């Protein structure tokens, strides 16, 4: 049986520091089994400026078993499945401890965004790109952040629309925008 009193305390603790850390946790409904976590993309990374949502499910054995976490926001990262959002992180598996909390787990996920571990990948395609074509990885990760993790995800669509109106083919516009990480001016240079 989940220790609901502890989960309540955790939610209170998270809300106290939400302004400073940007990390939030809120229940999906009346029970405290399903929650949504929110983390900001770390500064100085391709994920900067993005707000990433994470689905959290608490097992019956929580806090003696780790919470189940999965990215809801699409993210391009070697240790996070680009398809399912599954996270490869040791403290969410065998290295869990009941002294860890939802907040510390989310902080660890945020740290994972800053420091990918391509040798222990969740997504082999992304890990390969990270190792062999780092700049393309950075551009793609930034493009995915622009596309899926920003409130102004319409920004990409606006840029596509503008460039298409200049007469460039849409498919080529999209692929070049992705390659340059969503930078409209750089995309224009390459299209010409």
């Amino acid at each position: 049986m989940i220790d609901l009193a502890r989960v309540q305390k955790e939610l209170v603790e998270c809300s106290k520091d939400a302004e400073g850390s940007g990390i939030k946790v809120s229940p999906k409904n009346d029970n405290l089994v399903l929650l949504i976590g929110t983390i900001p993309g770390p500064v100085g990374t391709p994920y900067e400026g993005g707000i990433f949502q994470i689905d959290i499910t608490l097992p019956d054995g929580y806090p003696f078993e780790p919470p189940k976490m999965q990215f809801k926001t699409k993210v391009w990262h070697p240790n996070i499945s680009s398809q399912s959002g599954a996270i490869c992180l040791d403290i969410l598996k065998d290295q869990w401890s009941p002294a860890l909390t939802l907040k510390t787990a989310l902080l660890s996920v945020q740290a994972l965004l800053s420091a990918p571990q391509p040798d222990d990948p969740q997504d082999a395609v992304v890990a390969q790109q990270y190792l062999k074509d780092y700049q393309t990885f950075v551009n793609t990760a930034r493009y995915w952040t622009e596309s899926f993790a920003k409130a102004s995800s319409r920004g990409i669509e606006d840029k596509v629309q503008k460039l298409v109106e200049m007469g460039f083919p849409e498919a080529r516009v999209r692929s070049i925008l992705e390659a340059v990480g969503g930078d409209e001016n750089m995309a224009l240079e390459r299209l010409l």
Partner: protein
Amino acid sequence: MAQQFQEPPLFSHVANTCINHVVYITIILTSFDPSSAAEVCRMQSPPIERDIFNHPSICHDILRQLLAYSFVPINFYIGQDCDLIPNLSTRLCESVLQRSGVHINYFQVFITVFQTHCCYNVVGTPFFFQADELPSREMVQRMTCDGGEHSLPAGAMALKRFLIQDEQEDPCAICIKDFNSGDNAARLPCSHVFHPDCILQWFVQKSTCPLCCFACSCVS
């Protein structure tokens, strides 16, 4: 309503050795039928109504009190992962059902306590053992074959139990509840403190300190 135990049972007895000891607990169950009133008056320890088995929480509480007076180490029966008391209750209930025609039942509970586990057995007897008539160790050893065994989590022996005297600054890191004066607490060899229930439940999975990962199972 079941009578409350006010004092330890008169005939609990401990035979102690370095490695293990055997605890005898005598439990008297009666239906308080009028015809047995005279017999009840002659008993030297208070009887317990057999109806307590219809109220598991009351039964468990009485057993816990009996165990507390019988020198069974507390970590054998305190903690969410310990099933010794429910198991004893089940055995007693089974024994009672086998002897339902008798108004007064005597039950001897034998618990052999080892370092990391205990064996227990419940034996119904037709008469009341006097103190000097307790079964020999050999007899008890044979009797425990029909009982059960209860193992502690691997790290439990590393715990040092104590009562909180001053309120601690840090709450239990597992349930995030504050320690108050008089609360039960358990200190690990690494000096981190938790509620006994909390840390024993974690030790079922892994005998490490949740805060610093100190391995507790190799300490004795």
